[in-house]
């Protein structure tokens, strides 16, 4: 097994998802099969090979430090599930 049910639950927590108990086994099986498959990458020796983070090798894309108009409070909040006092409202955050 590449991944256990406990691992799956841990990853779900990191991703802010929940897995229903009745789905856990099937999901773990699917994830295990996929992780088992991708293991084939280890057949390749990649010693000294550079990791590729971008499809096109480029560097330095900048913008000038120039103001652009904001979209406005109304636009900013138009899709908010809950809003009030010009802010997005969320369940109380306890630090």
């Amino acid at each position: 097994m590449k991944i256990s049910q406990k691992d799956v639950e841990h990853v779900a927590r990191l991703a802010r998802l929940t897995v229903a108990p009745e789905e856990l086994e099937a999901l773990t099986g699917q994830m295990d099969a996929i992780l088992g498959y991708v293991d084939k990458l280890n057949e390749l020796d990649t010693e000294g090979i550079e990791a590729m983070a971008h499809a096109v090798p480029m560097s330095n894309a900048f913008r000038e430090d120039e103001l652009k108009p904001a979209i406005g409070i109304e636009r900013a909040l138009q899709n908010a599930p809950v809003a009030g006092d010009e802010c997005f409202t969320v369940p109380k955050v306890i630090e």
Partner: protein
Amino acid sequence: MKFHNLTIQDIRQKLNSGELTSVELTRVCLERIKATDDKLNAFITVCEEEALAAAAVADQQIASGNGALLTGIPVAVKDIFNTLDVRTTCASKILDDYVSPYDATTITKLREQGAIIIGKLNMDEFAMGSSGENSAAGAVYNPWDTQRVPGGSSSGSAAAVAAGQVVATLGTDTGGSVRQPASHCGVVGLKPTYGRVSRYGVVAFASSLDQVGPVAGNVEDCALMLGVVAGYDPADSTSVDCLVPDYLENLKTGVAGKKIGLPKEYFIDGLDPDIKKAVNSAIETYRQLGAEIVEVSLPHTDYSVASYYLIAMAEASSNLARYDGVRFGIRQDSGDGLIGMYQQTRTAGFGDEVKRRIMLGTYALSSGYYDAYYLKAQKVRTLIRQDFHDVFEQVDLLLTPVAPTPAFKIGAMTNDPLQMYLSDIFTIPTNLAGTCAMSLPCGFSEDGLPIGLQLIGKPFAEAEMLQAAYAFEQATDWSDRVPEL
């Protein structure tokens, strides 16, 4: 009226001459959508009123001689493009009520050329899927056989063109999501070189792989659409500042003297016999058109699916973190506090395939696994790009099948995600390498299902690839067939 056998430029002439008005044309499209979309489910949103209003304006512009390339011509876009004041759902429940406050750069470019955005097309949720079945708006059906999938993830983009609902659409291609549905639906679909078309305003699936691409009924329209949306965008740091040629200008150049490579890793034993036959016949056509055909090798092809899915899922796990029920989209909150709200919202809002990929991606990036999975996949990606670099020293273009089988039956792979992933084997490597590729019709299976041919071009050599595609299209009549609905 039928669009069949009419190119966008033909329609342009009819509009300019007054033989046809944009309002008439828009009505035809709307009626066709009404008549066929019960069977196809290609559209998530149809903007009837807005489209008709825009058509009326377009008619005035055309009458006063101020028409641009697409003035008055209805097109539709995958529901992954942000469109100002129109719902953008990405076929996800989590964005069910999302109305974008801005236009994607590609949408702006379409509007600048006068295009009428008639609606938003169905797709696999967040572009994750190869069948069009993973949609909160319901599955999309193949116009050639509604028992079968249209391919994905730009399912609606291909089905709508195949069914004659619109002349052209935009899709996105992360691992074959334009080419594979184009192949399954018998239309032309193109994935440009990464960086050729702006990604700004296109909901991200896997940022280093995503690329916008046109779908159309013929090569010429595909070339025209590419010309409209291509070009450097300062709002997308990964877009490339290089000249966009006029793709229509030298379309008829032909392929005489061109060297076309057949990567041997793509002509494997498991290939469906109908596909093998159609592709072999296409090779013969190219030989007759004067191209030199040579066998080449892309030795790391077999590792591309593994590399691709790790990278795509890792990037997706991060890209989809913003769907948290705070600023937009749905929220589920049973009062268990902040973390509870996050979990309930995301668990209810995302479909199973999306959740599976987020979790796999999270795992691949997590502490202790990063090097073994994500970093390893990125290194293998370098090897795959190098394969293409090497092979393009020898040949001008590559020719391959698009998919190992024609469109499969709805539900055939739902419970076996890995099997589904493996069906992307021929389209994925070009996304990893970043180069351009396209799909065009090259035959039909015994069951009457379309079969696509893939051409792969050198980076930023879309023009050359389109010329080869055009030559093939002119020499054959595969594009002339239309599905009966």
